[in-house]
């Protein structure tokens, strides 16, 4: 019985053979932050974006509530990507092209307090300065709690 079924299946497969629709992988959607760890991710359905916030060890310690005060040397990086439907599964959205990479690095200011140097680049690496409210962006990206990992 199994032989009959296998023979039938083989015939049907041969009759319905069509070339594979091999996808093209998009390495440009990946972002590397050497020496940094993931603090959290976020979805924004109003802006149709999806982001990941990275931090160095000091930044991760702050986000993990180990410390209450910011400290010079903390570095936060927020990578924001376009949100797109995941191919082959209606019910999931995923990251597409990188739209911006923001960084905030804590330094001691001339007044002797901890402040942040902020920078924003586009997905193409070009510096973006127009229309950026640095203070609110710094507050946002440095103020998120770390997602819980086991």
């Amino acid at each position: 019985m199994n032989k009959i079924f296998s023979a039938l299946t083989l015939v049907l497969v041969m009759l319905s053979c069509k070339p594979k629709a091999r996808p093209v992988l998009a390495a440009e959607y990946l972002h590397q932050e050497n020496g940094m760890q993931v603090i959290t991710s976020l979805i924004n359905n109003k802006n149709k974006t999806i982001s990941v916030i990275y931090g160095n060890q000091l930044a991760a310690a702050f986000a993990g509530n180990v410390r209450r005060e910011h400290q010079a040397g903390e570095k936060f990086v927020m990578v924001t990507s376009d949100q797109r439907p995941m191919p082959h599964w209606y019910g999931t959205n995923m990251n597409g092209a990188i739209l911006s990479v923001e960084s905030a690095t804590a330094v001691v200011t001339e007044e002797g307090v901890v402040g942040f140097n902020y920078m924003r680049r586009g997905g193409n690496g070009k510096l973006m300065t127009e229309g950026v409210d640095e203070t609110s962006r710094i507050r946002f990206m440095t103020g998120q709690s770390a997602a819980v990992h086991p």
Partner: protein
Amino acid sequence: MKKSGLTVKKKKLVVVFCAILFILAGIQFTSPSIKNPPSTSEIALPADVMAILKRACFDCHSNNSSVEWFDRIAPVSYLVSHDINEGRSRFNFSEWERNPPAVRELLLWEMVNAIEEKKMPLPRYLRMHPEAAVSTTELEILKRYVNTLPGRHKVDTMAIARALPDSQIQQLMKAVPVSANGIAYSDDYKNWKIISTTDKYDGGSMRIVYGNDIMVNAIAANKLPFPDGAQIVKVVWGKQREDSLGNVFPGNFQNVQLMIKDSKRFSSTEGWGFAKFDGLQLKPFGASAIFQTTCINCHRLLVPDNDFVFNIPTK
């Protein structure tokens, strides 16, 4: 001489024809019978959704298989019987409550995807049963329906459990959790590169998907299928309520899912080994290695051209 040659040919044809008839008649005695056991808990659906699924899916995925006369004749009956048995084993609308509620929802989303990807109804079934085809308008009805399911709007409102007590962490450090198929948990992924970030709104979760160097290098080189040694780790959280700016942050940690490529070790599941570790305790999912079959069934159906992986970045 010519006449005699034709006669020989004719005789041969008659012999072949008779042999085929004899074989066809013979296999009718071993032809599988297709039975419809009683329904124990038929799925309850809105009338318009039910009408579509009854017409397109019930022949193979319910105990109400409506079999045509030609479906009962061997060798076709072997194929029909196989498809019905396979269909019922994947999910059965007549025994719907055998599935846990979360699985029922996932199955309904999977059905929508299988139809959208034109994997279901099976093309060979559609050739004989064109009335089972699902139109674009009908697919939209199904999509609207799955978007009303509870998981679609699930928000994690529980206080976020930050970490295990020290005693439990120490216990975890002593005994590394191991899945039933032998895959051990490791947190090496924390040093890997993120290959995708997802909003799985069908079930109210969000994920970060990591790839090891072999996986990332394969993506960079546009290399498919992925080589042995490639590994993927999905870290899954619930979703907190959306804030006034539209931001949604991770809620409670739910699980870690692993996919490991080893074409020899996991040959029965297209070369991929699957594992899932639930909760902060990282409890291995699945009492036996059979759970891998559930994983690969869906991956095999929907992403065979992606080397059976969903979460890869593609153009």
